[in-house]
């Protein structure tokens, strides 16, 4: 039985509290998908009318008008006008207005009302407006707009019943807006919006007092950046230290699962595939879940409070230096944990060229998967000596690798902006919202959705890729009694044979070439791959790393080790990043470009390191 469910769209300016209203109406009954062909999220959810009939609510991207300036705004226009592929035209609209910013938000509302769809207006955040000394006459507004106007406070679920009832009435009556509203251009609409807003305002006092006071400190030319960097420091600390017990737990769980599978599945193809392929491969990516959740907790918190726009404001000048804008700051920051959420976060960048450049340099931010590789090599080759009070040589090298990545990213951004991503200097026009207290349930919901998205990816793309890599490493199988190891004899081993002449000039042996192949799944796999190659059988990771360090110190020269570090600063050794890039850029062109330029850079960087170190007699 398929019952016709009316489709209702939530529309409004950015910062109208649309998403909070959407969460309040639909609760956890939400579905996030993509509109076909574009990287714009389609957020939909179920709700019920007063009599229990179900309806579908979609949360359209916040827009300023039906004349789009970004892919997000284009989707909003196409959906409300009924010409978005794969979407029916909504039966009714809920226009969400910020009560404290009526004259601005009514401009878009007037344009939407002229479409003639049954409409209800949600006069949202009335509580904040009242706190700021603003009293509004909803009845007067309803009379002027010709549609029902319902005062709502999304975060306290106020006005939701009334909203559903009003919606029911306008849908049943197929009630189009009643006042003549066909204002042809934006200036005329703006004048009209101001008239209507002023008529609806009963009394007002100076608003934004709290926001102005906070901005006085947070946007202060000296205190502002210091506060931002202190906050970033806390976030980094949290991502790396709070996450480790959970990551250890997940690792232990993966190990237990693989023991269980080994014990229950008979030896052979399936056991090897499940234990060595799936559990090991997917497990190595899922381990990053705690870090990603902590990172997103801070990012969602910064977004919900309104601080994110201020962080972008402070960083804009520096980003402008390499042809980007403040909007690229958050995606790049996220990439220090993992490039996958970083690249996904580029969706908020409205300029296409800016977005592309940000995606292409995101893998140069030192993600946490590089840390295990760096740690092993540094411990084995860099002496533990102090170069200054409290500054150790090893820590300095690690810090240098981070800086190396950032400088590389800046240079690449500059080059890309004047070549493949050429375009006019991007602007940085951004509304700075009022500061707000975040709502815990909205944060929790957001975190849950990010985690689910990441796990779904681990369960699909990464799953498939790890099986592919496992096949390469397992077949053909080494004949009994051969002196070759399985990894040397396998298809991957033969590929390493082909790679060897390519990487020999930069100081890499065949063993290293062989370790680089499984490390395509995730960089830190290089550690266990090297351990396998040098036949280390250690009971746990720490002893493995320690034993591996000793073995490497005996076999690699210092120039080779330094070249190996330089390689990992640039090499795109993460199939998941490539897969996400393919999805976010809608094609194979840019992921292939990314692979080529990063491998090229990695080769050159490792080469220069190797040749210089050799020439210096290290």
């Amino acid at each position, binding site marked *: 039985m398929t019952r016709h469910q009316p489709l209702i769209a939530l529309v409004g300016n950015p910062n109208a509290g649309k998403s909070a209203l959407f969460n309040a109406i639909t609760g956890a009954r939400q579905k996030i998908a993509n509109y076909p062909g574009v990287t714009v999220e389609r957020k939909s959810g179920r709700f019920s009318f007063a009599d229990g009939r179900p309806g579908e609510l979609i949360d359209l991207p916040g827009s300023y008008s039906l004349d789009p300036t970004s892919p997000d705004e284009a989707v909003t226009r196409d959906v409300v006008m009924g010409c978005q592929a794969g979407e029916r035209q909504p039966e009714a609209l809920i226009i969400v207005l910020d009560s404290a910013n009526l004259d*601005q938000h009514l401009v878009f509302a007037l344009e939407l009302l002229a479409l003639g769809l049954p409409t209800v207006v949600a006069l949202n955040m009335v509580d904040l407006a009242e706190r700021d000394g603003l009293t509004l006459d909803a009845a007067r507004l309803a009379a002027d707009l010709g549609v029902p106007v319902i005062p709502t406070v999304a975060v306290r679920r106020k006005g939701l019943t009334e909203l559903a009832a009003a919606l029911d009435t306008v849908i049943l009556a197929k009630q189009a807006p009643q006042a003549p509203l066909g204002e042809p251009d934006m200036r005329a609409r703006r004048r009209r919006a101001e008239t209507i807003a002023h008529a609806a305002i009963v009394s007002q006092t100076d608003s934004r007092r709290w926001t102005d006071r906070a901005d006085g400190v947070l946007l202060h030319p*000296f205190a502002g950046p210091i506060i931002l960097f202190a906050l970033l420091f806390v976030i980094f600390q949290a991502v790396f230290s709070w996450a480790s017990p959970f990551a250890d737990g997940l690792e232990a769980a993966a190990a237990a699962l693989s023991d269980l599978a080994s014990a229950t599945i008979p030896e052979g193809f399936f056991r090897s595939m499940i234990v060595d392929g799936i559990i090991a491969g997917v497990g190595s990516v899922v381990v990053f879940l705690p870090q990603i959740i902590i990172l997103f907790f801070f990012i969602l918190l910064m977004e919900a409070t309104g601080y994110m726009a201020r962080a972008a*404001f402070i960083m*804009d000048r520096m980003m402008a230096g390499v042809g980007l804008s403040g909007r690229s700051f958050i995606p790049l920051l996220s990439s220090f944990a993992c490039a996958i959420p970083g690249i996904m976060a580029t969706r908020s960048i*409205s300029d296409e060229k800016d977005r592309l450049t940000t995606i292409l340099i995101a893998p140069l931010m030192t993600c946490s998967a590089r840390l295990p590789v760096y740690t092993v090599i540094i411990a084995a080759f860099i002496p533990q000596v102090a170069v200054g009070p409290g500054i150790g040589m090893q820590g300095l090298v690690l810090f240098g690798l981070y800086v190396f990545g950032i400088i590389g990213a800046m240079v690449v951004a500059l080059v890309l902006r004047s070549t493949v991503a050429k375009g006019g200097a991007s602007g940085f*026009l*951004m509304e*700075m919202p009022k500061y707000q207290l975040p709502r815990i349930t909205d944060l929790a919901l957001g975190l849950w959705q990010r985690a689910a998205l990441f796990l779904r990816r681990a369960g699909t793309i990464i799953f498939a890729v790890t099986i592919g890599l496992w096949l390469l490493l397992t077949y053909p199988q080494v004949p009994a009694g051969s002196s070759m190891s399985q990894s040397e004899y396998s298809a991957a081993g033969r590929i390493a044979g082909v790679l060897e002449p390519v990487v020999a000039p930069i100081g890499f042996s065949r063993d290293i070439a062989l370790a680089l192949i499984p490390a395509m799944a995730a960089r830190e796999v290089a550690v266990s791959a090297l351990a396998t190659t040098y036949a280390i059988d250690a009971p746990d990771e720490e002893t493995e790393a320690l034993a591996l360090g000793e073995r490497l110190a005996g076999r690699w020269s210092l120039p080779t080790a330094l070249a190996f570090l330089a390689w990992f600063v640039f090499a795109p050794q993460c199939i998941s990043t490539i897969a996400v890039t393919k999805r976010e850029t809608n094609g194979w062109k840019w992921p292939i470009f990314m692979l080529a330029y990063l491998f090229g850079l990695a080769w050159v960087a490792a080469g220069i390191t190797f040749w210089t170190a050799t020439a210096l007699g290290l």
Partner: protein
Amino acid sequence: MLLDQLPTGQRAEIAAIDWSVLPSDEGKRLRALGVDEGASVSIRHRGIFFGRDPIALSIGRMTVAIRRAHARAITLREPKFGAEAAE
């Protein structure tokens, strides 16, 4: 006077905007935010120490960040002295 020269905290009315020097999307976005001829604006904050760029503009009940390069496309009516004291 151009917008980027307006002293912080002082209110002024926009006399003209040279749309031709703004990228078309940027112009559209400016208009959508109400930054248009006749609008009354003031500068709330300037960016961090080097360059003091971008600037945070107060328009209506909003604060909008804009780069100085684009603020230079906006010409202001000379403010009437004395009228500012009330702000």
